[in-house]
């Protein structure tokens, strides 16, 4: 067998709850299984993300959206962790957790509008696709710089603590950004300030083409917590029950005033880094094959079926309903035009200063005299 990334790393104990085929809970598991309603809501969110990613990737191939970063293979890690947080808690995301907006109640239409960057996009077409945000569900966007959102999460947690609220913050990062200064600053500030925040590392094996083994010499990502003075744990990230249990435990601790925790979810990025990355250039097919046999969605379906919560007919029904709703959202989004040219200079400051007003007036004059600017033909490289 070639030297590929596998689930269990020598010397690291992962918390696990269910068998790898999802057929039953492990006897050794002593944690908390989510109630049936929570299990089903996690599953629906996982399914939505899978269906959405498939659809968006197809649109990208057809040239209808510019860029997609998929979550395929990481759905349990993403949605079972988010399920441990309430509506007044805040969630700071990294690249692949955008589906959590929908899980927390943002309409699918809004998600799709952002992918198109059209006039209905809540970011007014200012960000690349896949930088989701929604203030109504307390979900700010990440920045492409990576790791920068982690200190923000700590600041928000400290603000909540200062006001005596019981809310907590979830801060996501990938394995790559654990090497960033933002990760270090955030972990350190959080522990020193006893901030009510849960750091969740979704270790999907790859930061574009660099394997996670080249991000750290620590025995595991969970082990990093120790030096900062907070609890850390490594979890099978494709096991929705284990993920929920570990993250819920950390969230409870934070809510009770016990401070921050680190939860490292070991998972796998099944696709490329994004729609324009070709992972066959740098990783072994055997590795992809190994992880495709550990699909978190199939595992969850098997678990729910065995529990009597899901039938094949129901699965079909849910899937079809999602496909239809997403299709309708796409049809609508393609009818909506670009944001107004005037929006180019709003939201830089609360009130546009005169020089910005002058600049947009000039741009409008040139449009009136010479027509619209030509659309750029360049393609995003990553």
């Amino acid at each position, binding site marked *: 067998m070639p030297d590929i990334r596998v689930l269990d790393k020598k010397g690291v104990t992962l918390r696990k709850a269910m068998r790898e085929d999802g057929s039953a809970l492990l006897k050794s598991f002593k944690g908390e299984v989510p109630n049936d309603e929570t299990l089903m809501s996690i599953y629906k969110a996982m399914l939505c993300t899978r269906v959405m990613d498939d659809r968006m990737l197809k649109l990208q191939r057809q040239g209808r959206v510019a860029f997609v970063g998929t979550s395929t293979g990481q759905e349990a890690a993403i949605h079972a962790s988010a399920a441990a947080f309430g509506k007044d808690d805040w969630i700071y995301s990294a690249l692949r957790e955008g589906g959590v907006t929908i899980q927390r109640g943002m309409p699918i239409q809004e998600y799709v509008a952002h992918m198109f960057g059209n006039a209905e996009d809540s970011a007014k077409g200012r960000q690349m696709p896949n930088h989701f945000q929604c203030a109504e569900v307390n979900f*700010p966007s990440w920045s492409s710089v990576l790791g920068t959102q982690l200190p923000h999460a700590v600041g928000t947690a*400290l*603000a909540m603590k200062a006001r005596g609220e019981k809310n907590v913050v979830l801060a996501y990062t990938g394995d790559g950004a654990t090497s960033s200064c933002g990760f270090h600053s955030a972990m350190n500030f959080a522990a020193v300030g006893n901030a009510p925040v849960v750091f969740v590392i979704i270790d999907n094996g790859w930061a574009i083409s660099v394997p996670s083994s080249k991000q750290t010499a620590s025995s595991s990502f969970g082990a990093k917590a120790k030096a900062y003075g907070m609890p850390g744990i490594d979890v099978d990230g494709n096991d929705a029950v284990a993920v929920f249990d570990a993250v819920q435990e950390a969230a409870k601790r934070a809510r009770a005033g016990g401070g921050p925790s680190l939860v490292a979810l070991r998972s796998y990025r099944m696709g490329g880094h994004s729609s324009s990355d070709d992972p066959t250039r740098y990783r072994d097919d055997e590795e992809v094959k190994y992880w495709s046999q550990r699909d978190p969605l199939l595992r969850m379906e098997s678990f729910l079926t065995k529990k009597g919560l899901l039938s094949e007919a129901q699965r079909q029904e849910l899937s079809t309903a999602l496909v239809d709703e997403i299709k309708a959202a796409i049809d609508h989004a393609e009818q909506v035009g670009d944001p107004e040219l005037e929006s180019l200079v709003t939201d830089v400051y*609360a009130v546009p200063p005169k020089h910005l007003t002058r600049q947009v007036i000039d741009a409008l004059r040139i449009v009136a005299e010479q027509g619209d600017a030509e659309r750029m033909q360049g393609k995003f490289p990553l």
Partner: protein
Amino acid sequence: MVQAINDGLRSIMKEDESVLVMGEDVGPKGGVFLATENLTKEFGEDRCFDTPLSEDGIIGVGIGMAMNGMKPVCEIQFQDFIFPAFDQIVSEAAKMRYRSGGQYTVPMTIRTPYGGGIRGGLYHSQSGEAYFAHTPGLKVVIPSTPYDAKGLLIASINDPDPVLFMEPKALYRAFRQEVPEGVYEVELSKTREVTPGGDVAVFCYGAMVPVCTEAAKRVKESRNKDVRVVDLRTLMPLDEESVLQAARDCGRVVIVHEAPRFCGYGAELSALIAEHAIETIEAPIKRVAGFDTPFPNTLENYYLPDARRVLDAIEEVLDF
């Protein structure tokens, strides 16, 4: 000035519970320049607290607080130490309102002492205002008097956008001025006419204001010419109208700053005047600036513009 800043912080903290102060040594010690003296004692550790030695952490955590209803005043001990936080300031604080379509905002103030004159060498003397004035979404404010320092600081803290508040450390204890008690604001993006005059307009800010005022006095004595010294006070967004008005009224312009000349703030000011008021300009626009070198230690008095060098430039534009 440093007492006025301390008084400004105390006044606004009394009035607004969402204002809090954080940074290195701002707690019991009261800051290395004593700008935050007694604030922890008066308001408690929740409102004024020491942080780990981590500039990007200070600003990043401040951003997260500001996004969640607080008005943090983050201190960066010396402006020279701000660069580890450059990404958080430029890519995060400054862009948050824009990139979220107005859903999230960062009403944060970053206080930082800048500039030379204390024998601080390379890393306790720099003037980095141009890096930040170049960043859309950020406001850059520099006071030159105790009265303005307090009023502009309170206006910055109350402003809905992130403000970099750069304090000329050379003026911290340079002269005394009575300031009103309690909360008052000096409006941002408004220049101040320091001396009236119609012969030459001298634009400056921070520690260069008294330098230019002294040069103006010498020109009056030696040539009986009236120099209008204009203190910009807010570099971004600039009070363009007042700048252009002064340039048009005088027809001769000198711009003074401590920072290196190349791509310095004076370059933008010069271009602005050339673009909008060229028809009234009677002499080349002159800049007096720091050398295009790192900041020196022993020879800092030659590096920094002083009244001699400003006078030299004023005479040059008068004689053109």
